């Protein structure tokens, strides 16, 4: 459209050439556009349409049920509970892994020779398969045989059963989540730290801000604003998608206190095969992730300029 308007008053020859170029441009973009539609947009549309039906996997007949799946979902205590649990999990994992990631990044940054070694060590959890590591954590925190229990006993603490205690189970899962994310956040913060010009520290030094805390509060932290925003958004979205540890370790137990959104979705869709309600939950999940990302972008974006 714009191309056509802009070229309306130029000579006919030039006009034709520009139109050809525009067409070629669209032609070049078409394959990517088709892929985006087929791989990203179409599945979401299909899921949305499914969420308006009572389709059960394998069934021959199904019917449109309008928004029933959504209204049922809002009255379903299992769904509401898993939503609540997911928020609690996110509320522990995001601050935990962002702050720890920042601390580790600053400490590692100041190393010179051993920097690479520390980076590798802290990054290791990111490279592991969370499902396999869930099994390991499961054993570590075993209330009778695990090394953590032995340590607690030796230090005189009473026994605790992380995955059996309704009040501890989300904390236990969150610790594993933090453990996995710290290394990734550290790498992102390290990249942010490298981008801070040295002369800012020199200038701060001259102005009298020469203590470690002053340097952090006046230079490092403000300069890391954009990085922190990015880290918080990605961490929130990753934490929102918690599934592996729940599926491997607790399966929603005890008393549904570790039911999280994706696990409930999995149970409805792939154990009870109710595709309609499961699709409605998928849409709800998409909306939540989108809202979180947008809200963070809008709110924090205003404070990251200096």
């Amino acid at each position, binding site marked *: 459209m714009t191309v056509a308007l802009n070229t309306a008053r130029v000579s006919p020859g030039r006009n034709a050439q520009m139109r050809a170029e525009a067409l070629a441009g669209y032609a070049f973009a078409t394959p990517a556009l088709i892929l985006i539609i087929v791989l990203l947009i179409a599945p979401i549309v299909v899921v949305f349409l499914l969420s308006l039906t009572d389709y059960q996997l394998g069934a021959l007949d199904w019917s449109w049920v309008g928004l029933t799946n959504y209204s049922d979902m809002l009255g379903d205590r299992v769904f509401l509970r898993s939503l609540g649990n997911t928020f609690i999990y996110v509320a522990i994992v995001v601050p935990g892994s962002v702050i720890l990631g920042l601390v580790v990044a600053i400490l590692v940054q100041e190393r010179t020779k051993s920097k690479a070694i520390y980076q590798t060590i802290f990054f290791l959890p990111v490279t592991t398969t969370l499902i396999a590591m869930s099994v390991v954590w499961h054993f570590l925190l075993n209330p009778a*045989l695990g090394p953590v229990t032995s340590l607690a006993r030796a230090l005189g603490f009473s026994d605790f059963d992380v995955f059996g205690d309704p009040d501890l189970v989300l904390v236990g899962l969150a610790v594993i989540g933090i453990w996995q994310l710290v290394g990734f956040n550290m790498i992102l913060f390290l990249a942010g730290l490298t981008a801070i010009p040295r002369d800012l520290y020199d200038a701060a030094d001259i102005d009298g801000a020469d203590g470690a805390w002053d340097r952090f509060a006046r230079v490092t932290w403000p300069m890391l604003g954009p990085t922190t925003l990015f880290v918080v958004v990605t961490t929130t979205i990753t934490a929102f998608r918690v599934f592996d540890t729940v599926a491997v370790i607790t399966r929603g137990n005890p*008393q549904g206190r570790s039911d999280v959104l994706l696990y409930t979705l999995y149970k409805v869709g*792939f154990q009870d095969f109710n595709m309609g309600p499961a699709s409605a939950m998928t849409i709800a999940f998409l909306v939540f992730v989108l809202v979180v990302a947008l809200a963070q972008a809008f709110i924090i974006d205003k404070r990251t300029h200096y």
Partner: protein
Amino acid sequence: MDRRTLLQSAAGFAALGLMSPMIARAQSGVELVVTHCFPGHDGFHTEIANAFMAANPDVKISFTNSPPTYEEGHSLILRQALTNQLPDVYYSGFHLLPPLSRQLTERGQITHLDSFLATEGDAWKTENYSPRILDLGNFDGKQMAMPFNTSTPIFYFNEELVTQAGGDPANFPDTWEGVFELAAKIDALGDDVDGFYMGIHTEAGDWFWQALVYSNGGELMDAAEKTVAFGDEKGLAALTLTKRMVDEGKMNLRENQQGVQQFYAGKTGILVQSTAGLRATTDSVGTNFTLRTARYPLADATNGRLPTGGNAQVILTTDPAKLDAAWRFSKWVSGPEGQTVAVKFSGYMPTSLVAEQEQYLGAFYKENPNYTTSVGQIPVARKWFGYPGKNSNKIIDIQRENINLAMRGEMPVAEVLAKMVADTQGLI
């Protein structure tokens, strides 16, 4: 080489490529594609298939990848049904067999077995299968499947711990009272020793709850499958037992895998589990202690029953050219040859009456008395119940939460039972 000869030779190669499966098929007759659940079962399935192929050289059995659970297998089959890519033979979990066979019957993608059984004759039927076993694969009056692996819950115990606590391993208690008394004594042996563990508060599915209700002579629903039926005194006795496990049996409410690991490590006296895990448990225990098994106590000696876990084989091919081979395979796996291998490799109960004879499992049972416990329970085994409607897994989850309330003492047992009945009824 010009373009034409290139194309010709390419076509030639392509034709050769297309033909080679045909050549293979001509040599081996029929190929049956088979799917079973649990990669851990690959071993005995392959061994059974190899023996079958050796005895039936015209049939080739090939396995697809094994889904990790019955539920994932079920959803895989339903998806394949939509795209017409079903395997010829599939092993379905008993609890998923009614929805699977009904849906596939509706779609015309399953072969019922009644005519095959009729051809074999009644004498053959009574010689090979007990009516109760065949009934496990029978729904709506049709034989949908041949039972392959069957299991019931049994007691596993640590002989050394039982002896130390003053119990007699040769006379393991056959009542819950006796079990709890022994468990409390074992628990008192040390701070790091537990008496009893049964993962009813945490394990997936409701198999253990069904076992408690059925062994007390109760029912989960009425015969018409309309009204929840465990709200009676039998259901109350069943739920009270869960509370007594904690109060009298000193059970810790651990997560299931941790509870089982602790038993393997020799730190728990008594464990309730499926007999299907006997081989795996024996291997995991190793030389840590002497593993023994005992029958699950029936609180109601006359009407008490136990739910049957496991899976049954369905024939999904409707291709007349394959049906004869598929039925031969079905008879083989559920017959003495197949069952001998399956039982030895797992601990499941045999579905074939012939398999218990001396030349098949007889000698093995004499050497491995742990494996005979479940065989003694075959007469009290009944169908694994599946709730009608779309919410069976949700029902099970909510029931488990209620059981937790009772076991943790957060609500009186009778109140929990009333709530559990109402919750279940509300989801049907």
